[in-house]
């Protein structure tokens, strides 16, 4: 990292050595305090600087494409590096559809898991279950992708897609050849990846609902489910929504697993069996092969758009989660 931090750090270390003998020493502690403060401030400003640097880099490197295409960039669907025509619409579409599909599958499951873990399951099962869902979040996305290619995709091709086409083909969402690879596979693997995030936030906000709420509703004669619905879920809904949006943020920016199974073709099709492309995967696939300045700049612009969208989504999520948990008793006072 650039910045004043390394120099100041060295001074602190030498100051430590000088002072290690007597515990109480007056005199230069004022200067040492000042130096230490400046060093720590430098580290803090580093964080600030990094975000500034990211924004600057993305804007500076994408200006070429921005000036060439303007707003049209996001609404045109021809991506033709040879003729230097760039339109990001297929990627925007693929990102949005795969993420929404993932949420559709993940939200009921994640909330179910959270309800079970916080309200219903026996106490001894709580710890192990929470740990296992945490583990699911620690698996790198490249391993999800690997598993998806060799296990999920064949499964979809042989069993799930023929089944869906047979019984739900009339919707138009499930038609065409059974590749296995495609939007559906991407949505499913993303769903598996965002469930732990949504369920852990949901768990957190449900735990933040005061115990008296539960007791009060139960005392009114509610069954357990009615207690959960009216006493817990209704009070935690903003936070749960925040968790869902946080999951959306993760799904939008997820790269590797999606790149490995979505098919990587900049086409827009109604059928979920068809291959697609996302904003993150186009950067992953084409960035190191981008030969011309405009091409590279177009890819950076896709990155800039991805950055802005995920930032907005994340801030929104944080505000929602905070609105529920701020009233909870602080940790460490229990």
């Amino acid at each position, binding site marked *: *990292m650039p910045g004043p931090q390394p120099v100041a*750090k060295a001074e602190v270390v030498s*100051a*430590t050595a000088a002072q290690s003998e007597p*515990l*109480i020493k*007056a005199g230069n*502690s004022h200067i040492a*305090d000042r130096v*230490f403060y400046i060093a*720590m401030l*430098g*580290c*803090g*400003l580093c*964080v*600030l600087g*990094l*975000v500034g640097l*990211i924004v600057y*880099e993305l804007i500076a*490197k994408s200006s070429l494409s921005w000036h060439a295409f303007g707003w049209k960039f996001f609404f045109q669907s021809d991506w033709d590096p040879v003729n230097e025509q760039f339109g990001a619409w297929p990627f925007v579409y693929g990102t949005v559809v795969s993420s929404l599909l993932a949420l559709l599958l993940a939200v009921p499951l*994640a*909330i*179910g*898991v959270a309800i*079970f873990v916080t309200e*219903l399951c026996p106490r001894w099962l709580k710890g192990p*279950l929470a740990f296992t869902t945490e*583990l699911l979040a*620690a*698996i*790198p996305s*490249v*391993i999800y992708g*690997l598993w998806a290619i*060799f*296990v999920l995709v064949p499964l979809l091709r042989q069993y799930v897609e023929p089944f869906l086409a047979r019984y739900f083909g009339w919707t138009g969402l499930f038609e065409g050849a059974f590749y296995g690879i495609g939007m559906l596979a991407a949505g499913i693997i993303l769903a598996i990846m965002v*469930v732990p995030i949504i*369920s852990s936030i949901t768990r957190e906000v449900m735990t933040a609902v005061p115990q008296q*709420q539960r007791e009060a*509703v139960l005392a*009114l004669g509610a*069954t357990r*489910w*009615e207690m*959960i619905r*009216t006493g817990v879920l209704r009070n935690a809904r903003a936070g749960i929504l925040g968790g869902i949006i946080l999951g959306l943020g993760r799904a939008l*920016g997820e*790269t*590797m697993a999606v790149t490995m199974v979505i098919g990587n073709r900049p086409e827009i099709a109604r059928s979920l069996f068809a291959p697609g492309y996302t904003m993150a995967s186009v950067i992953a696939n084409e*960035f*190191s092969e981008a030969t011309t300045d405009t091409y590279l700049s177009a890819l950076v612009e896709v990155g800039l758009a*991805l*950055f802005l969208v*995920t*930032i907005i989504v*994340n801030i929104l999520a*944080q505000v929602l989660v905070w609105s529920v948990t701020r009233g909870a008793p602080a940790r*460490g006072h229990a």
Partner: protein
Amino acid sequence: MPDTVAATSEFAATPISLWRRGMNSFITLATALAVVLVLLPLGAIFAYLVYKGISSLNWAFLTQTPRPVGETGGGMANAIAGSALILLIASAMGVPVGIGAGIYLAEYGRNRLGDLIRFTADVLNGVPSIVVGIVAYGIVVLTQGHFSALAGGVALAIMMIPTITRATEEMLLLVPNAVREAAYGLGVARWRTTLSITLRTATSGVITGVMLAFARVAGETAPLLFTAFGNQYWNWKISQPTAALSLQVFTYAISPFDEWHRQAWAGALILIILIVVAVSAVRLAASRGMLKGAN
């Protein structure tokens, strides 16, 4: 609270009807089913990793570099070493800055600037990893003129910093003020109190944060694609393109060769072992931290 008051009318003082009791059991069953459905892929992933990985794991895999396409054998030794190198660079840059920023937030950050830094750390946490890769490419690869281990390390360091910062801050704030005041009372300088009293007390918590950040970036692939880039040979220079375990798994997984698929599973197994060890270490440290921390 108004919600609860409004809810009163929903529960009549009559015996619980069959419908309500049925609904209750149904939800219990449905949520249990959700747990099973969520754990199923987890089990399947681990089972496949072990099943496919173990059979391809051998001494050659851990000691040799990749062979050309068509030849069997060879391994990922250079990728394992490359991952270690990149993670070392990332930790060397990310850990001090992260902890320093955490100290600033906890000890001096009760002001506008502190709030701003806290907010940006959260923003940085949410930046997609591929975008971090673009930025590292811009600031390191373009300046140096070629892909390098350093660029990969910078990318991963950027991803580590916010996690470490927020964890450090949280842990330092758990240290009771009385401990700080006791040190001041003895005439210990403020910086010395922070380093040898406050930070020392919170050590295990801070280590937890560092390990979490480490586990998070250890398996990252996207930001390495066009920074570390990958390499078929040994490389120990931080200014040269370097192989990484996650990159190698990705390249092999999307290749059309069975031999490479086999090796991808073995590489993934090594990677997951690394991460599970780190996460377990975190839990161990965290459970000790409870004993040592706030009391």
